[in-house]
């Protein structure tokens, strides 16, 4: 069938939708959100399918105070802040790394946590603070970096962590939705690391049809097909894995054990949402010496001032970006106010660029 598969999938989706009529499907992963936009998926789907974007962009959910701390650290003479590119333009309470930047004090943009370690090795007289942001997919890479620092006795590397976990936030999303959601596209790369079983609780506990999917057009259309198909006839909600080429039953055991070695779960603050128990990974006691919060005596992040931004609702799929009153006025990709606007895969940014 080859490329024809996509055409067949679309045809099948249209056929089933004649029966299903209306359905809401949430994609949790920001990269799915981006792929859906990039491939123009909505443009080939029947109008009855509404795709919602969940809290799946780690940039979006990092609290404002995290950025504030990063900016403060960057301005210190003996500190180099290293970060993934996306974090650079996110505003904290008042400003972003980008807007505070001077010729001499600017973030080092890295592609990998291990690059941050390299910077530390090459700048022994300064402390490198890596902004450790991500979900379960990125956490092993960060853990590996910390372990390497330990092995090589590199002590001038710190991490400022905002690592988040999927299941706790999905519990909250599904509680609020209370049956409104017709299906869930599960984050394929989180599953790659954690394994298929990691998302079993979705159908089992929340009675929702869930598909672990990759990021190609066919993968996404396949997931939508399976969800729509499951609505026809009286089927029990199941967990399906159509990303078997990367996602095994138990995931990457070595990566998981490294995460367990370095990190422990803790409550975590989500921008626009609030504190969620056991939703963050933080350094274990024995790796505390790498923790920027500890070394620079930063305040704990346990609450956040109320924002005018509708990000909370956007992340929950309860509103679409166009419904936020800041959208396209006080908040645009050129001058993002809320976190969903800053990452190119944030719901508001994607909506701004592709769907207007």
């Amino acid at each position, binding site marked *: *069938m080859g490329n024809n*598969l996509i055409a*067949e*999938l679309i045809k*099948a989706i249209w056929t089933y939708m004649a029966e299903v009529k209306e359905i809401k499907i949430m994609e949790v*992963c*920001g*990269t799915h959100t981006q792929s859906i936009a990039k491939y123009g998926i909505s443009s080939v789907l029947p109008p009855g399918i509404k795709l919602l974007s969940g809290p*799946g*962009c*780690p940039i979006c959910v990092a609290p404002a105070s995290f950025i504030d701390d990063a900016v403060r650290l960057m301005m210190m003479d003996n500190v180099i802040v290293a970060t*993934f590119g996306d974090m650079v333009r996110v505003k904290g309470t008042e400003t972003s790394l980008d807007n505070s930047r001077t010729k001499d004090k600017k973030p080092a943009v890295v*592609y*990998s*946590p*291990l*690059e941050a370690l390299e910077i530390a090795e090459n700048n022994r007289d300064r402390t490198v603070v890596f902004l450790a942001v*991500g*979900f379960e*997919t*990125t956490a*092993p*890479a960060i853990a*590996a970096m910390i372990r*390497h620092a330990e092995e090589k006795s590199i002590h001038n590397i710190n991490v400022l962590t905002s690592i988040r976990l999927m299941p706790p936030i999905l519990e909250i999303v599904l509680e609020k939705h209370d049956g409104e959601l017709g299906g869930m596209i599960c*984050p394929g*790369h*989180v599953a*790659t*690391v954690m394994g298929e079983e990691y998302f079993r609780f979705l159908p089992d506990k929340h009675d929702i049809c869930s598909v672990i999917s990759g*990021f190609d057009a*066919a*993968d996404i259309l*396949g997931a939508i*097909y*399976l969800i729509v*198909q499951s609505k026809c006839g009286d089927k029990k909600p199941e967990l399906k894995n*159509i990303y*078997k*080429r*990367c996602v*095994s039953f138990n*995931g*990457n*055991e*070595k*990566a998981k054990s*490294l995460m367990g070695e370095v990190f422990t779960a803790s409550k975590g603050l989500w921008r626009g949402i609030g504190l969620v128990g056991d939703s963050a990974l933080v350094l274990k006691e024995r790796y505390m010496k790498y923790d920027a919060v500890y070394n620079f005596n930063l305040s704990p992040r346990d609450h956040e001032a109320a924002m005018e931004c509708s990000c909370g609702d956007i992340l929950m799929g309860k509103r679409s970006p166009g419904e936020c009153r800041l959208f396209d006025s006080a908040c645009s990709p050129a001058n993002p106010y809320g976190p969903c606007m800053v990452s190119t*895969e944030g719901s508001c940014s994607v909506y701004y660029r592709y769907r207007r």
Partner: protein
Amino acid sequence: MCIAVPGKIISISGYYAAVDIMGVMASVFIGLLEDPKEEDMVLIHAGCAIQRIDQEHFSYLEKVFTVMQEEVH
């Protein structure tokens, strides 16, 4: 949340491998993999190989779809 691309391990040197990503040769950390080998297809995220790709399942979706559609007709 997690952009990742596939690539093929060309050669290994310690924790790192030279990986061919659609014609681009990049140095990738492979310390998260159990026993990586040359010729392995791997999935790369943030400069790290996070999993081996199982080439046997490349057409898994197509197979599932074919079976399901046949069931209907």
